[in-house]
C-alpha cells in the first residue's frame, strides 16, 4: 500500500513534468518526483525494522531489536542535497529567463531561442 503511494508520487511528478506548461511548475513537479524517490529509499530501509540504528554508548547490544537499515538512508541524504542544489541552480536560470519571457512557457521559450 505504502509502496503504491510512493510510486504514485513518482508518477504524478513525472506527469507534471510532461503536462505542465510553465517552467516553474515543471521544476515543482520534478521536486515532487524526487520526494517520491526519497520516500522510496526510506521505505526500503524500513523493511527490516523501524528503530534508529544507534547502539547506546559503551554498551554491547544484548537484545535483538529490529533496526532500520542505515545504508539507504545515508545514501539518500547525498541525493537530497544534490537534488536541492540542482533545483536552486535551475531556479536561478529561470529568474534570468523570466526577464525576457515573463510567462515562462517552455514552448514559447523554445521557439524564440532555437534558430
Amino acid at each position, binding site marked *: 500500500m505504502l509502496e503504491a503511494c510512493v510510486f504514485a508520487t513518482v508518477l504524478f511528478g513525472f506527469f507534471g513534468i510532461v503536462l505542465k506548461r510553465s*517552467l516553474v511548475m515543471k521544476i515543482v513537479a520534478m521536486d515532487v518526483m524526487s520526494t517520491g524517490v526519497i520516500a522510496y529509499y526510506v521505505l526500503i530501509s524500513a523493511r527490516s525494522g523501524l528503530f534508529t540504528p544507534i547502539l547506546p554508548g559503551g554498551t554491547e547490544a544484548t537484545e535483538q531489536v529490529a533496526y532500520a537499515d542505515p545504508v539507504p538512508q545515508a545514501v539518500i541524504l547525498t541525493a537530497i542535497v544534490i537534488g536541492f542544489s540542482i533545483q536552486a541552480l535551475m531556479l536561478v*536560470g529561470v529568474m534570468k529567463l523570466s526577464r525576457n519571457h515573463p510567462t515562462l512557457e517552455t514552448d514559447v521559450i523554445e521557439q524564440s531561442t*532555437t534558430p
Partner: protein
Amino acid sequence: MNTLTIAWIALPFFMGFIIYLIPKLDRVLAMGTALASVAYAMWVIFLPQPIELTLLDNFGVTLFLDSLTGYFILTNALVTVAVLFYCWQTDKSAFFYAQTIILHGSVNAAFACVDFISLYVALEVLSIASFLLIAYPRSDRTIWVGLRYLFVSNVAMLFYLVGAVLVYQASHSFSFAGVREAPPEALALIFLGLLVKGGIFVSGLWLPITHAESDSPVSAMMSGFVVKAGVLPLVRCELLVSELDPIIRAFGVATAVLGVFYAVFEKDAKRMLAFHTVSQLGFILAAPEVGGFYALTHGLVKAALFLTVGTLPSRNLKELQQMPIATPVWIVLVAASFSISGFPMLSGFGAKALTMKNLVPWQVVGMNLAALGTAISFAKLIFLPHQRDGAVDKDKVKTGFWWAIAVLIGGLVAANLFYIEAYTIANIIKPLATIAVGWVAYFLIFRRISVKLPRLLEQFEHLMGMMSLVLVFLFWAVFAT
C-alpha cells in the same frame, strides 16, 4: 599505488577550488592538473592488472581501473589539455577554468567508480559543471539550452536512483556486481538513466541542440568526453552480465544508424557534428569490449572538429560552399574527417577495424551502413572550397588553436601504436571502398537534394515523453532476456 589513485581523483576538485582562490594562476593550474591526468592515464593503460580499491569499509566508494578505463581517462585528459590551449589566449575568466577542471575531475570519478551511488554523485556533479559551462555566455539561448540539459539529466537520474535502490534491496550492496541478482525492473530503470546521460538512441536526442548551441570549446568537451561518462558504466554492466550483451549491442547499432541518418541530411556544420557524436556512441556500444580505443579516437577527432568548425565564418554548409576557407584550417578539417571516416594512417582506421572485428554477425549490415553514412556526411566538410587567404575568424585562429590541434591530431597519429596490427591488406581496402562509395553517393545524391528533417523529437516535451517510451521498451527488453 592506491595513494596515487586517490590523489589523482581528488586533485582536479582541489585545484578547482584553488583556482577560485588564486585566479591569476588559473590557466597554469588547470593545465598542470590535466597533464597529470594524461600521465596517470598512460600509467593505467599499461598496468599489468587492474587496480581495485574499496574506500571506507563495506559500503564505501569502490574504484576499479583497468586499461579500458585508461583509454577513457586518456580521452578526457587530452581533450581537456587541448581545450585549455584553445582558451589560453581568450579572455575567459577564472570561473571558466575552475568549472572546466571540476568537470574533468567529475568525469574521471565517473569513469573510475564501480558502485551506483558514487556514479550517481559523479554524474550529478558533471551535470552541474556542464550546465555552468554551457550557460557561461549568459545569453537567453545558452541558459535555456543549459536548463534543458540539466532538467533532462536530472529526471533521468531520478529514475536511475529508484533502480539503484532496487539493486541494493536484492544484493545488499550498491556495487555494479549486484546487477546479476537484481530484478529486471531495476536494470531497466538504471539503463534509462545511463542511456539518457550517454545520449544513446532516441533518449539521446537532447544532445544535438545542447552540443551545437554551446561555445565551441564547451561543445568539444561535451562531445569529447562528457557523454562518455554515461557510456562506460553501460559497458561495465554489459561485461559483468553477459545476458545484457544483445540489448547493449542492439542499442549500439540502432544509435549508430539513427545518428548518421540525421547527420547525412543536416546542413548546419555543428549540428551535423553533434548528430555524428550520437552515431559514434553507437559504435562504442556495438562492440563493448573494445569500446575504449574507439572512445579515445572519437573524442580526439570530435574535439578537433568542433574547435575547427568554431573558427569558420559560418555554420551553414551551404554558405560555406560560396566562401572559400583558409587552407591551413581546411587541412585540419580534412585530417580529422579522414580519421573519423576510417582512412588508414590515422587511428580512426584502427579503431574502426577493431570494432568491426568484434561485431556479432547480425550487427554487420547496420554498422557498415553507419560507416558509409559517416563517409557521406564528412564528405561535406572535405569538399569545402579553400584558398590560401580564405575567410576565417582571425580572433579564434591564434597560436593556442594550433597547439590544441597539434595535441589532438598528434594524439590521433600516436594512438595508431595501440593497435598496429590493424594494417592488413583486407582491413585497408574495406574503409577505402566505403569512403569511395560514400563520396560517390555524396556527389550524385546528397549534394543535390535538400531535405529538412523535422526537429519535433528534439523539443523539450518530446524528450520527456520519449524517456517514458524508452523505459517501457527497456522493461520489455530486459524481461524478454
